[in-house]
């Protein structure tokens, strides 16, 4: 039996794991059992993903699709629970399950002393299930199941330490902001149904000629609204930095490596629409570029290690959208994969540091950790170089490919892209040097207790660091005549697979040189400021930037603007409706009618005096009027 006959098998492990841990949270012997179950489940999914990947390559088929049962059937619409495996979903499955598995293993150590150990692993497995549904779904509604499912898990895991007000608030914020994007996704889905009369991906792509320019523009725009919510792009990125309230493995898995890439995946999945000349692709690219630079500037001003990484994630996702928007889909997916490696490594490394420093997250209070935490230091260093784009690490190749495409598509995008590369190198260098170098700034007591993390945690770090170093081999520059494995693999599916090959080798080399120079320049600037001087360097940076630094440290006051422009008017509206309009106007009208009737009838009862002479008077008056009337009529 070929693994391609059982596409659902990839979902089975995590789904079962979540079910078992969810339904029998306290029954099994020893709490580690639960963690092991979850890891085995994730590992199983990874193995299945590998087998499916191999089988797909061997079979020579481009797309394998399997329908299991009819989920929704109404009007002429039929939505099946149908999965599809193609090179794109296979790459996504591998990334999600592979990185996911490592993070599960890491969590065994990281969460070992948490009281809600089992709930944590249940939610992690549930998340993997939802993410795998998202990437293997064969139609829009089923993808939406995964789409909202990851949103839910994100809500549950951000608010994992729910006793903390900030955590439950952040979870709520994530879900609410995501929902705004989801509404865009929904409308895009309606529009697709209206135009194509189907919601299956392959059928939509076959019927593209049915769509007018207007249809394409709106559908892609609305899909992108969905993507900005899930992938934290302007203007819906605000939930992601707050999502750092969750446990660090969650930040690594959900808010760096997998869930947030769903938007990029969506754009690439729907690329036949985005590839249309009338699509919103240009907007995607510009929003991506602006998000990249915007988030990178904020990252420079943050002191919380996880927040720097969070803004860095927003920024790197911006790169991916930049690529997807200009049609460089392979480059987008390539960067997605390498980013999953080095960002997961960075987050887990920061988790290791936070763990060692007893929940200290402020990089200004760290420093000098490199000798105490050797493995963490080396892996963090490797991942930092990778994300900064230093040759020959993973980030260098993927970022360079995006920049090369941007150079050809639009010089403005390219300039933003390289400026952002410089900033990336700088703020990552800042984190690296302030955390691991620059002398210790910790109290002695705390310093004594600092220790390297247990092997279950460092294992994941090492593997991810190796991937961050060598991940670039997946996509060597085709322009230089080197093999680009990923492009070759995705070629049957994506139109741009050999796009960058048209570039002259000299230009390619020149662009690489610029990127590399900027990366090293950024790192060097950071080193000269922070490597020795530490906190003084930060002081100098603040003085140099002046008012701008305040702006950056306060994240351009975007949260405040949102609060003033969106949240507060909305809650005032809600308050006005429920406290004033509804009881006074709507209900007031009703009660007013009732009161009027009561008043009228009360008036009427006054005529019933009970005195004979009053009644006689009324009768006589009536009779008189009657006679008068008759006489008048008689005439």
């Amino acid at each position, binding site marked *: 039996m070929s693994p391609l006959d059982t596409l659902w098998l990839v979902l089975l492990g995590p789904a079962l794991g979540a079910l078992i841990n969810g339904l029998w949270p306290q029954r099994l012997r020893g709490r580690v059992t639960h963690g092991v179950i979850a890891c085995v489940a994730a590992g199983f999914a990874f193995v299945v993903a590998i087998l499916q990947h191999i089988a797909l390559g061997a079979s020579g088929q481009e797309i394998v699709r399997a329908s299991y049962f009819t989920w*929704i059937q109404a009007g002429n619409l039929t939505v099946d629970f149908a999965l599809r495996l193609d090179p794109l979903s296979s790459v996504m499955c591998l990334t999600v399950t592979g990185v996911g598995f490592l993070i599960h293993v890491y969590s065994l150590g990281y969460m070992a002393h948490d009281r809600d150990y089992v709930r944590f692993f249940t939610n992690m497995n549930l998340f993997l299930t939802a993410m795998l549904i998202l990437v293997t779904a064969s139609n829009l509604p089923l993808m939406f199941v995964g789409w909202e499912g990851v949103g839910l898990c994100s809500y549950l895991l951000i608010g994992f330490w729910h006793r903390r007000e900030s955590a*439950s608030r952040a979870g709520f914020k994530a879900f*609410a902001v995501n929902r705004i994007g989801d509404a865009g996704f929904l409308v895009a889905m309606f529009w697709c149904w209206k135009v194509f009369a189907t919601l299956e991906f392959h059928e939509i792509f076959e019927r593209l000629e049915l769509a007018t320019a207007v249809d394409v523009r709106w559908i892609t725009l609305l899909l992108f609204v969905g993507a900005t919510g899930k992938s934290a792009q302007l203007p819906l990125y605000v939930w992601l930095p707050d999502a750092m309230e969750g446990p660090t493995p969650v930040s690594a898995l959900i808010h760096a490596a997998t869930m947030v890439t769903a938007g990029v995946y969506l754009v690439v999945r729907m690329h036949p629409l985005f590839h249309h000349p009338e699509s919103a692709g240009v907007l995607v690219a510009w929003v991506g570029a602006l998000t990249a630079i915007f988030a990178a500037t904020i990252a420079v001003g943050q002191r919380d290690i996880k927040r720097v990484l969070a803004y860095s994630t927003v920024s790197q996702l911006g790169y991916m959208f930049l690529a997807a928007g200009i049609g460089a889909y392979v480059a987008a997916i390539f960067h997605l994969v390498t980013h999953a490696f080095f960002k997961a490594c960075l987050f887990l490394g920061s988790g290791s540091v936070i763990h060692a420093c007893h929940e200290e997250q402020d990089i200004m209070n760290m420093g000098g950790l490199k000798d105490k935490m050797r493995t963490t230091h080396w892996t963090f260093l490797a991942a930092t170089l990778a994300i900064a784009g230093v040759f020959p690490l993973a980030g260098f190749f993927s970022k360079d490919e995006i920049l090369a495409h941007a150079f050809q598509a639009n010089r403005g995008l390219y300039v933003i892209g390289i400026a952002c590369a410089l900033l990336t190198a700088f703020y990552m260098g800042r984190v690296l040097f302030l955390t691991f170098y620059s002398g210790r700034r910790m109290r002695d007591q705390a310093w004594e207790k600092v220790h390297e993390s247990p092997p279950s945690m460092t294992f994941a770090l090492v593997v991810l660091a190796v991937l961050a170093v060598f991940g670039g081999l997946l996509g060597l520059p085709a322009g230089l005549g080197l093999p680009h494995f990923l492009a070759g693999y995705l070629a049957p599916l994506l139109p741009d697979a050999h796009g960058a090959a048209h570039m002259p080798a000299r230009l390619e080399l020149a662009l690489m040189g610029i990127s590399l120079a900027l990366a090293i320049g950024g790192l060097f600037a950071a080193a000269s400021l922070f490597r020795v001087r530490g906190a003084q360097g930060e002081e100098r940076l603040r003085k140099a930037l002046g008012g701008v630094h305040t702006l950056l440290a306060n994240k351009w006051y975007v949260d405040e603007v949102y609060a003033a422009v969106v949240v507060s008017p909305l809650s005032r509206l809600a308050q006005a409706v*429920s406290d004033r309009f509804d009881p006074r106007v709507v209900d007031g009208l009703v009660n007013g009618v009732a009161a009027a009737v009561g008043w009228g009838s009360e008036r009427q009862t006054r005529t019933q005096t009970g005195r004979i002479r009053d009644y006689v008077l009324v009768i006589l008056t009536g009779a008189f009027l009657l006679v008068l009337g008759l006489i008048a009529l008689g005439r």
Partner: protein
Amino acid sequence: MPWLTITIFLPTVGAALLTVLRRSGGQGARVISLAFTILTAVLSVALAIGFNGASPDYQLEDPKVPWVPALGINFHVALDGISLWLFLLTTFLSVIAVLGSWTSITKHDSAFFICLLLLETAMLGVFAAIDLVLFYVFWEAMLIPMYLIIGVWGGARRLYAAIKFFLYTFVGGVLMLAGIIILYFALPEPDRTFSIPELLARAPQLDGSLQLTLFVLFGLGFAIKVPLFPFHTWLPDAHVEAPTSGSIILAGVLLKMGAYGFLRLCIGFFPVGTEVFGPVLMWLAVIGIIYGGAAAMWQTDMKRLIAYSSVSHLGFVMLGLFALNPMGIQGAVLQMVNHGLSTGALFLLVGMIYERRHSRMIADYGGLWEEVPVYSRIFLVVALSSIGLPGLNGFVGELLTLMGTFTSAWVQAQLWAILGCLGVIISACYLLWMYKRVFYGEPKPHRDGPMKDINTIEATAAVMLLAGIVWLGVYPAPVLRSIKPAAVAVVNRFEVSRGNVPRTKPFADLAPDVAPLGGTELPAVFSEDDEQ
């Protein structure tokens, strides 16, 4: 055997038995009513098994019994694919309502359960009646037990709420009665009838202006019941004051009668009225979705919050119905069932903590997640189903009603669907914000000590509802399939009866045309002209 009639009146038999055995004490009354509601539910399921889901016709019909022969009024009951599911929902929720009042009703127990059982008969009658007068009689009969349930077993302001509920509904009922009489005499002599299937064929041929009047007379009563904005203010008061089971029935079944009435009578009888007032109702539905959600966001009382959420959710139902395409109507019927399960479950769950802490105020709670873990998790799933998380029931209904609206032939269809999507965002906000305040955070100490987690009876009721919630979320296809023929019949009748009246655009009745409606022009969202 007239099984449908037997099913309808089985709860009445139970009520009669309770009046005889009144002295048998509280526990007996509970067991007897539970037995009768379960028996009714089992019978209704047995009936459903014999139902042919592929046919649009009335089925399971019992022989017509002349009731007032001089006027042609008959006792005549049957079900079609639309009423079948509402019928099943009613028998199911009645069991839940009995379980939900097991410990919460502490005075006049027998009388309470008598009311509940009589109410069930009346509700079943409304959905099964295919004689207009019979429909009206059941409609009004339902009012009395519900009035008593709120007025006797309710909270502090129960009398105000009960009278408000009664007056609102009664006004609607009286207008409907006037409509029924006018309709009867408007038909030419030999055609006069109260039979709904016959009226479906004859009423649409009535004069257009008369149809408008009749649509308003019938529609007002239904709009109050749904409730559509701005006729909704009786609902929060009634819900807050009603006992738990009263709220379950009120939200779960009674509100559906308004929507059902619109579907069966207003759309069925008066196509001209439907076409003229359709946009008005769509706007009111959209306003209701947003307004109800906005109002829910600011509530401090959990029951009031859920009541306003009902206003919002029923807006989706109305959108689906007046989308006037099979997808919308199928979605609307499913959404009615969904709302019954989800909101019924929410009221049941709030009732549970009310019984423990005697407060419905959100501010009085906090940190329940650790105090009552099982309860908290169940509540979360139910809240998510109400929010419309895919994989649970609410999503399917919302998707279909909104998608049906989006592809309907109204000029402003897309605008309504997009505005309706705002409800999707808002519902997440008010429910999860409430959830955060009640369940997360530090536990609040209470003078009664820690709260007890859910007990067996409560768990039984909750698990039954959860099963429905998950089933309709994961595998709603069979249900949708059996609704489809009846929904298509409604649409076809509407299309045929509106005959040659030209429309600004072709009506996409069964599916969006493969050639897009908008053509190369701008999408309809942006066009200025209206249907009229």
